[in-house]
């Protein structure tokens, strides 16, 4: 047996294993940029501070397209990504492509979880989560009995308007009856609602494949031209996994008050699912960085005691399992995390990045273990409303305060709109110091 881990690691990422490079120069460029990031992560004196433009729609706005165009016309999204890289020559290629799916595919299945441009929100605006209650209180029991069965037969028809036939999806447990279970297992697939649902899935899948070839192909082209991709995997804190798209914001907060024991059981049960999601997505995408956006544990969203019961222990288990699998968790602490810093300073060993929107980074540096890499803070207010000189000054001062090791200069959020000259000023700030 080989000692090599089964999946990607920082070493395989830095070497560019498995990447089809355009030529030797592209490979050298890739490795130079990747080394900068790995050196920063390991406190090994990078040649300069790396910059990561955590972004969703910024490349689209940068290229002069609307979010609606990017989601409906893949060629325009492709052009956005290529233009972004040509104009800015980033240290890391952002994960934007995976966050912008085909709106046509969403339409075919009538996805209810978000409003997207052309489907409820304005053509010029990014998509927005609806955060409704997709799983009722009465469904907890079904969820506990068999989470997969719950998601297939109850959750899917609730969240996708054109997949209501999934309510008739036969239970796999029927097959334990042997030949007597086969007929009842097959029967629903012949019924009209199920046939329609399966056809919708086939059509949406075909569109997703087309999108993947075009957009996924563009990302491969960009990475092969010498730009390492920032993250490849994704998972969520178990509490957010339940709160964002299953129970919804209001309902999970009511669970915190009305049925804490049930909620705790649900959050605990989601830990192995969150771990599996992080490891699988990193392996599939051959990238050790696993993005973990944190939503409902920020200051104000629960008490310290609740954070230490319902949020942190489960998230910590996910972080620990990812680092044990040689992966690098990239935690994005949206909102403010000042009151959480003491709690989250109890971290497992291993490389990881903590990315903050609105938390004093110097306080973070003082509180979290020295081995943690810190990112974020540059505000959208600054990037949208000020002039490039102000952005340069702010960014360089931040670098001065944070030091060259274990720091990644980055906007505080997943960037959508901003003045291109300001974004360039931020990205050039470490080069021009």
């Amino acid at each position, binding site marked *: 047996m080989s000692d090599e881990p089964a999946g990607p690691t920082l070493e395989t990422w830095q070497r560019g294993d498995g990447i089809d490079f355009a030529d030797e120069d592209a490979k050298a460029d890739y490795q130079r940029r990747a080394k900068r990031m790995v050196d920063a992560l390991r406190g090994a004196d990078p040649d300069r501070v790396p910059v990561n433009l955590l972004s969703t729609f910024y490349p689209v706005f940068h290229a002069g397209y609307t979010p609606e165009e990017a989601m409906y016309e893949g060629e325009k999204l492709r052009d956005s990504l290529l233009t972004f890289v040509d104009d800015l020559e980033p240290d890391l290629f952002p994960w934007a492509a995976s966050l912008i799916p085909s709106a046509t595919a969403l339409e075919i299945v009538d996805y209810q979880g978000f409003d997207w441009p052309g489907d409820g929100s*304005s053509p010029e605006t990014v998509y927005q989560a609806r955060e409704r209650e997709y799983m009722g209180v009465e469904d907890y029991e079904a969820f506990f009995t068999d989470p997969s069965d719950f998601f297939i037969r109850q959750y899917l028809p609730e969240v996708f308007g054109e997949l209501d036939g999934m309510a008739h999806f036969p239970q796999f447990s029927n097959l334990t009856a042997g030949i007597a279970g086969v007929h009842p297992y097959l029967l629903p697939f012949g019924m009209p609602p199920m046939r329609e649902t399966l056809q919708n899935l086939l059509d949406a899948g075909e569109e997703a494949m087309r999108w993947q070839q075009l957009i996924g192909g563009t990302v491969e082209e960009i990475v092969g031209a010498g730009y390492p991709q920032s993250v490849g995997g994704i998972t969520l804190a178990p509490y957010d996994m339940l709160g964002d798209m299953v129970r919804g*914001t209001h309902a999970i907060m009511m669970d915190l008050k*009305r049925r804490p024991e049930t909620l705790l059981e649900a959050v605990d049960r989601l830990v192995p699912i969150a771990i599996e999601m992080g490891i699988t997505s990193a392996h599939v995408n051959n990238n050790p960085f696993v993005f973990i956006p944190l939503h409902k544990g920020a200051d104000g969203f629960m008490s310290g005691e609740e954070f230490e019961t319902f949020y942190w222990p489960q998230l910590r288990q996910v972080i620990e399992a990812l680092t044990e699998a040689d992966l690098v968790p990239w935690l994005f602490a949206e909102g403010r995390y000042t009151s959480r810093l003491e709690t989250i300073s109890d971290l497992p060993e291993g490389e990881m990045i903590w990315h903050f929107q609105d938390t004093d980074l110097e306080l973070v540096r003082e509180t979290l273990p020295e081995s943690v890499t810190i990112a974020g803070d540059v505000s*959208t*207010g600054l990037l*949208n409303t000020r002039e490039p000189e102000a952005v340069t000054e702010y960014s360089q001062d931040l670098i001065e305060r944070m030091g060259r090791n274990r720091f990644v200069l980055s906007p505080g*959020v997943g960037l*959508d*709109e901003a003045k291109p000259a300001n974004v360039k000023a931020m990205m050039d700030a470490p080069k021009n110091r």
Partner: protein
Amino acid sequence: MSDEFVQALADLEEERAIEMAKERLDAGEDPMAVLDDLKKGMAIVGDRYDAEEYFIPDLMYAGDIIDQISDLLQEEMEMEEGEKLGTIVLGTVKDDIHDIGKDLVFFMFDLNGFDVVDLGVDVPPEKFVEAVEENDPDIIALSGFLTAAFDSMKETVEALEEAGLVEPFNEDGLRDGTKIMIGGGQITADVRNYVRADGFETDAPSGVRLAKEWLKTVEAAQ
């Protein structure tokens, strides 16, 4: 029973508080007395949120409890409006559908005795103009979570200025008359300047404090 009821509300003891409200109404007590206690209990909830003893889930829970008791009271009486501290026109600006922050602001202002006209989410500038014309508020509160909200807020302020509903922005100080407050997770002093709002806050209790300060300034000037 009055003190116990206030305490049950303040401690968010849902079943007990609702049961006590029912008992008092069944016993023929004046619904106005129950309403007064409801306000007292919820004022304590607001104070505890302000003191960071309670958090957003507690406020939402309190909101659910208030709704249930208000339903009981409405069966018994026409709700009467008391003396109001001031009027606020509130909404999440155009192209933004986020409502949690906006709803918390509503709750906190309502608890503190303001009359709040809530226009909802994705509110275009012309709807703000109409509501301001109709309600003559002391404060206009614009909420937004997205970066797209920066421009929507700016357009809203411009529309209000063009309609002559707020004074032009004076960089040396506050506008006279109706003032504009902005709030949301990405709002900073830079955004306030860009939008030309009179002030900004990123959490609901601070928004209430700022509004009260503004009202005091107006009173002092009169």
